[in-house]
């Protein structure tokens, strides 16, 4: 009986102490791994953010393509969830980076070049005798070009890319000022 009681008491203590030591060792190892994962993830997020600002305008991809790109790039990056749960500052930095990437303008989200960082509007040349369409092969003349034209940046389903499109009075745009309209009415 004496041996059994001793055996039970010391076995229990040994198991509990072993569990405590193992858990705390594993915790320390996990912290080190989390710090390395944090650095790796931040690097990947920065690289991803830069790649989306590259020569190919971000406006040309759809939202699901954007998600696929992000998933591909980050699939090997472990997410140090322990670290972010504890550290609100790191969490804010990571969230801002990730949200910034996922807010990249896409073709499904409308396209205001001013807000989305798209190409700047074309520069109009005004040689004597008329306007020249930006990048156009020749100077245009006639009533169409004499009239004011509005250029709108929008997605073109035929090419699959956004581009500048011109619209003049024949599309229903009325360029008269309010005072001109009132004069004509009066």
């Amino acid at each position, binding site marked *: *009986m*004496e041996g*059994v*009681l*001793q055996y*039970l*008491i*010391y*076995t*229990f*203590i040994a*198991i*509990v*102490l072993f*569990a*405590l030591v*193992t*858990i705390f060792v*594993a915790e320390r190892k996990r912290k080190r791994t989390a710090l390395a994962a944090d650095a790796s*993830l931040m690097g*990947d*997020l920065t690289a991803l953010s830069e790649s989306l600002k590259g020569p190919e305008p971000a406006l040309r991809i759809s*939202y*699901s393509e954007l*998600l696929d790109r*992000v*998933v*591909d*790039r*980050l*699939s*090997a*990056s*472990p*997410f140090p*969830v*322990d670290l*972010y*749960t504890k550290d609100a500052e790191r*969490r804010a930095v990571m*969230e801002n980076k*990730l*949200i910034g990437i*996922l*807010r990249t303008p896409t073709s499904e*989200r*409308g396209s205001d070049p001013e807000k989305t960082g798209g190409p700047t509007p074309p520069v109009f040349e005004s040689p004597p005798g008329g306007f020249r369409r930006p990048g156009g092969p020749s100077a245009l003349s006639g009533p169409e070009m004499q009239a004011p034209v509005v250029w709108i940046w929008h997605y073109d389903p035929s090419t699959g890319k956004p581009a500048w499109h011109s619209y003049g009075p024949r599309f229903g745009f009325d360029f008269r000022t309010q005072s001109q309209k009132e004069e004509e009415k009066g």
Partner: protein
Amino acid sequence: MDPNSAVFLIAALLFGIVLLTVALILFVTLGIQLVTSRFLPIDLSAGNLVSFLKDLPTSAGQLQKAYDWNISQWSNFGTTLLTGTLGFITTCLVAFYKGEIKHLTITMLVGVAAALCLYLKSQIEINKLKNQFMYWYSLLSKIYTLRTSP
């Protein structure tokens, strides 16, 4: 009660068997958990997080299920540990009445303190998992709303 009576010895043996069983369950549970977490890490990647956005309602449900499972594991572990600790205290009391083990008080205090530390750790782990789930879910919801916002 006479410490050398048959009833006392049978009771002590029964408590001992309970203690041993609980200790074995504790060891097996913890051992399997440690081995699987070392060789089969279940940490999610940041890519997983983004891929969850493709079907948030389903992903959120699965994520909640995974965290529920983890939390229940730690909760069971804590309950088992408390049961084992009660068995340990009982065995110590039996040994005390019989006066067979030297330095029994210190041994008992060390055992109870270690068990309480482990129990505390299990409760901390449960709270951490709850926080992690809330954090994951709120981040997913926050990012998901970007899909519809301009």
